């Protein structure tokens, strides 16, 4: 069976974000980008399922401009067999992305759609759920453990109160949480091999997706800064300061 894994090129998680002074967005030019960390976990899980013989083919898919090809090459180095590049620049909101992924999932006849739980740029946490809704298939979000058995998957999910386990029929959508796995370190021979693997290009139009109305960003601002704090020397000083403010 086939698994489709979505990956996104985002500003690297270690970068200190700068908001543009005109409020039009954040500075992304000349800033290090990499694969969204949750998508690395999704790729790793797909590769592990393939190593266990649960899936036979991994197809990585992304939506983005030309530079997103780097992210697909990374996915191929992880172990994806081939990749699909939905070439659309500019901002793509989750429902539009989900419609494109759902179309690919259907076309490929994949039984699993594995995605990160959220992208660390828009922090939306929506796309996987929307893919599942559009196809009316099961969803297992925030997964910390996945066991695939035949045409079913048993997934442990990280919820606020602890861990919840659900069973879903395939096809299904799984979104990955941080503790699902530790993504492997990519080796040079795999990175070289990835250069030869095929990437097919497509577009929203090819997939029959029309981006509908979305949220319009009118302003982007830095968060309010906190006033400079005080460094105290002793525990007594700290206790006195907190008591003076009525906090203890």
């Amino acid at each position, binding site marked *: 069976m086939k698994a489709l894994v979505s990956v996104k090129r985002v500003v690297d*998680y*270690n970068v*200190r*974000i700068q908001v543009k002074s005109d409020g039009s967005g*954040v500075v992304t030019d000349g800033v290090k980008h990499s694969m969204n960390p949750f998508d690395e976990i999704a790729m790793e899980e797909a590769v592990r399922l393939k190593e266990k013989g649960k899936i036979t083919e991994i197809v990585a898919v992304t939506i983005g401009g030309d530079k997103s090809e780097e992210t697909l090459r990374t996915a191929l180095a992880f172990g994806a067999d081939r990749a699909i590049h939905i070439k659309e620049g500019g901002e793509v*909101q*989750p*429902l539009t992305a989900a419609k494109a992924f759902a179309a690919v999932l259907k076309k490929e006849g994949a039984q699993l759609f594995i995605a990160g739980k959220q992208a*660390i*740029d*828009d*922090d939306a*946490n*929506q796309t996987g*759920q*929307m893919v*599942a*809704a559009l196809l009316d298939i*099961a*969803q297992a*979000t*925030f997964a*910390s453990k996945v066991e695939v058995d035949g045409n079913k998957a048993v997934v442990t999910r*990280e*919820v*606020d*109160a*602890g*861990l919840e*386990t*659900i*069973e*879903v*029929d395939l096809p*299904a959508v799984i979104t990955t949480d*941080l*503790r699902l796995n530790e993504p492997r370190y990519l080796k040079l021979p795999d990175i070289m091999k990835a250069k030869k693997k095929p990437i097919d290009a497509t577009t929203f139009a090819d997939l029959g997706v029309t981006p*509908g*109305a*979305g*949220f*319009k*960003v*009118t302003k*982007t*601002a*830095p*968060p309010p800064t*906190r*006033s400079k*704090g*005080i*460094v*105290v*020397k002793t*525990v007594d000083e700290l206790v006195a*300061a*907190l008591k003076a403010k009525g*906090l*203890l």
Partner: protein
Amino acid sequence: MSKILIIGETADGKLNSGVAKVVAAAQAIGGEIVVALLGADVSGAAAEAAKLDGVSKVLKVERAENAHILAAIYAPQVAELAKDYSHVLFPGTAFGKDLAPRVAAKLDVQQLSDIMHVHGATRFDRPTYAGNAITTVEAPAGIVVATVRLASFTAVAAGGSAAVEAASTSAALPSHTRFVKMEAQKSERPDLQAASKVVSGGRALGSSENFKVIYDFADKIGAAVGASRAAVDSGYVPNDLQVGQTGKIIAPELYFAIGISGAIQHLAGIKDARTIVAINKDAEAPIFEVADYGLVGDLFTVVPELTSKL
């Protein structure tokens, strides 16, 4: 005028405390506020919701299939209810984040995540890039489906008396998703997301045994216990204690970051805390940049001393 439907979260028959904060966000939007609760028996939670100030009606959507919270089961029912409303709001919890996008896609509308400020019925602020950029967005025409960032709103009081009505839907429910089990982390301490004081420990604690100094201090001041991702990944505490971009976003009156360096992802979870206290032996740790009070020192001497002096 706006008609706002809030999808309330319940657990063990009780209303989640976050719902009172979602009501506050709904009041900021303005209009009629209806709370819908799904479950097998939600009468207790419905009575609690009916008391929340500003709520005009509580709908109970009770059926055996709703006994466990499963987004695939809830979404078709919520989507059907949503058709009569201008806004559908969910708490920004694991429950809301799992369910809201599925409902929005069924309604064929984009969804807004983590409303942190309401400018008007269609204009909102939300955080992006782990809270390092605040984006103001204008919603398109149609139903606004959104989750509310609980840390950004103050719970409404419980002085109301709304009517409670049974509601039903004709939505067909799928059979592809089944509940197996829930392993809840039981704790006598205050709930992390609702607590006014939180004491968090980080990697510097070194072991789960050493976390005792954090628990002892938290218990002394009646605080909830939290942790950084590093402490969770190292297995010192269960992962539902994680505070940060990928864990819980909290806004207590008083936050103690103990042995936590202050990575961007952690700061995303505590930026709205009223007062932040950092205890760290590294004077250069980024946590000191956001702390209102900082103390440079070894936590294993400082924290027990702090506990003993309170």
